[in-house]
């Protein structure tokens, strides 16, 4: 092909940009979807791992709580039995004292001495009316009554006075008169109807529970920084233990509604439930206790695990994915450009060659290198070469024909043919009248 035969027309949105755009789009979609899928699966697996951790933790805590509860109960039970021993001894003591005609003041002095020298906190001994005639705390005159409304704690001991019961052990609880945690146990009188009650400051029971139980574990776990918050609640969603890292926005007093629902479900369904929240993962595990020798849900452990770190990791991963995708895309575009050039370059050359055929300047041999290609473009170039050679050959033949096309007139034959006409009478007549005929037309027109 000669220079300067390139056609003026070039398509505005040609094969090459189309090819490039298509490939880039395809690769872009592939890369983006792959990284999205990878990110998603990574997030899922990390979340699953975190959830598994949370479930394990919550279950361990729930078991610990159950265990701690059991030990505390056993200790308290044993304590109750010992207290009944003490109360019985006090009952005998007061019977002996009265028979020995000791004054109430003398008996009280003995009682106070016992209380002062032992861990026994209080002794209350009533007469038949329920009035605490003998007591270690002289400043508190107290009369036991049967009305639970008036005496929520003390009324339970009244049946000792009536003979309905011989002993009562009450679990440790916060005392209504001064707010101290106390445990009371009482027996009926030996000599007459009485309530003989001993009381222990049972703060140590709570301390024991916390030492062996959940509270300490909760504190340690939260302090380790792997958790946002731990909360242990009873069946009524009352918080029994709570610890949260500072700034977590969680409080002991208020359990968020969503978490309440979560805990309720965990207790009701008796299984561990997880719930992802924006920055943390909440896991609720039920705590079981024995009631009438059956295992029932008595509360739940709620563990909040942080997912910020996880999200950070995810974000970093996403950035790496984006960077990798961009690099890959760049590479792909470069590759596509090279590929596009490999394909459209020959197409442009063939187009130019076709245009050159039109202007009769085509040199099919110029496409030899292209025709040596083994792909479809090579085949196209070969077909084109054959076609162009055919066209050129035909044109050459045409030109040769034209050169051969002489305006060859056989003079003798012409003369003979002309004579055949001119020698007719009609022609001779016409010839003689020609001027007249032409003249007549002129005449008629004018």
């Amino acid at each position, binding site marked *: 092909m000669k220079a300067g035969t390139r056609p003026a027309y070039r398509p505005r949105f040609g094969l090459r940009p189309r090819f490039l755009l298509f490939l880039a789009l395809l690769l872009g979609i592939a890369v983006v979807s792959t990284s999205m899928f990878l990110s998603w699966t990574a997030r899922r697996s990390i979340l699953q791992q975190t959830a598994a951790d949370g479930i394990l933790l919550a279950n361990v805590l729930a078991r610990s709580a159950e265990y701690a509860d059991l030990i505390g109960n056993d200790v308290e039970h044993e304590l109750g039995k010992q207290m009944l021993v003490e109360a019985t001894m006090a009952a005998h003591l007061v019977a002996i004292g009265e028979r020995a005609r000791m004054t109430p003041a003398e008996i009280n002095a003995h009682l106070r001495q016992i209380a002062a020298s032992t861990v026994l906190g209080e002794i209350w001994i009533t007469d038949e009316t329920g009035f605490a005639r003998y007591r270690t705390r002289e400043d508190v005159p107290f009369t036991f009554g049967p009305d639970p409304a008036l005496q929520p704690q003390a009324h339970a001991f009244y049946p000792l006075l009536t003979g309905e019961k011989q002993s009562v052990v009450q679990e440790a609880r916060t005392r209504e008169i001064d707010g101290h945690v106390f445990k009371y146990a009482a027996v009926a009188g030996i000599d007459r109807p009485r309530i003989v009650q001993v009381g222990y400051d049972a703060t140590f029971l709570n301390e024991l529970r916390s030492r062996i139980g959940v509270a300490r574990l909760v504190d340690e776990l939260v302090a380790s920084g792997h958790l946002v918050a731990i909360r242990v609640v009873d069946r009524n969603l009352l918080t029994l233990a709570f610890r949260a890292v500072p700034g977590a926005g969680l409080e002991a007093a208020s359990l968020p509604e969503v978490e309440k629902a979560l805990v309720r479900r965990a207790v009701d369904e008796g299984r561990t439930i997880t719930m992802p929240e924006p920055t943390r993962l909440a896991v609720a595990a039920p705590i079981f206790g024995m009631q009438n020798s059956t295992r029932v849900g008595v509360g739940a452990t709620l563990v909040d695990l942080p997912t910020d770190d996880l999200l950070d990791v995810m974000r970093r991963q996403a950035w790496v994915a984006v960077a990798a995708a961009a690099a890959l895309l760049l590479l792909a575009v470069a590759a596509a450009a090279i590929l596009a050039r490999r394909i459209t370059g020959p197409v442009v050359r063939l187009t130019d060659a076709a245009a050159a055929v039109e202007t009769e300047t085509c040199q099919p041999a110029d496409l030899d290198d292209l025709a040596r290609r083994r792909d479809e473009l090579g085949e196209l170039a070969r077909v084109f070469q054959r076609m162009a050679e055919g066209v050129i050959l035909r*044109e050459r033949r*045409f*030109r040769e*024909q*034209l050169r051969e*096309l*002489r*305006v*060859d*007139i*056989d003079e003798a*034959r*012409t*003369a003979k*043919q*002309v004579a055949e*006409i*001119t020698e007719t009478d*009609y*022609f001779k007549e*016409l*010839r003689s*009248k*020609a001027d007249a*005929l*032409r003249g*007549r*037309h*002129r005449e*008629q*027109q*004018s």
Partner: protein
Amino acid sequence: MAKIVSIHSFRGGTGKSNLTANLAATLASRGQRVAVIDTDIQSPGIHALFGLDEDRIKRALNDYLRGTCRIEETALDVSDQLGAQRAAGGALFLVPSSIRAGEITRILREGYDVGRLNDGFSELVRQLRLDHLVIDTHPGLNEETLLSMTISDVLLLVLRPDRQDFQGTAVAVDVARKLEVPSMYLVVNKAPAAYDAAALRQQVESAYKVPVAAYMEQSDEMLQLGSASLFCVRYPEHGYTREVEALATRVSA
């Protein structure tokens, strides 16, 4: 003063009728009053180019030659065929030959007075106040052709670039010379596109010593149109049309 233009070819199939019709149309579109007369009584064909068929042709040249009507009564106004190219003052008429087989055989059997044809030409020019009378002749050299040549102001000889046409045209040129036709031109038609136009033109001119007034290449568009209408009207920008325009200019000069 009216000009009589005869268009002739020694052999058939040279595109003579097409050239005649288009030349007449081009002249008419320049505001001239033009009539085409089809003297090819044996094988009439020019009517088709003006969109006419057997039903629209009531009277033909045959009727005039038999003396059953006046020549101007056979002329059909076909100016509407010019379409958008119709010009003020211009008019285009056609005097057709009968295309009824019976009429054709009858006139060939009985013959006619060639002198009457000559009178008809004059009468037509006068009655229609023509600027140009364009005569489409029968190929070959018969009596009416020789008459047309004799009375022509301009004779156009149409030929294709092939051996037989070259030989026949030589005879026609010599005969025309002997009849002292005032003005004679050659028209090379249907030349293959591969031919070198300038070279062929020059060869033809030097062989016959007659100027080539137009040179038309074979065209696909002409083939497609298939003599169904006027090419110049349909393809005003075509090379063929340009050549016809140049020819019209030369003829009316």
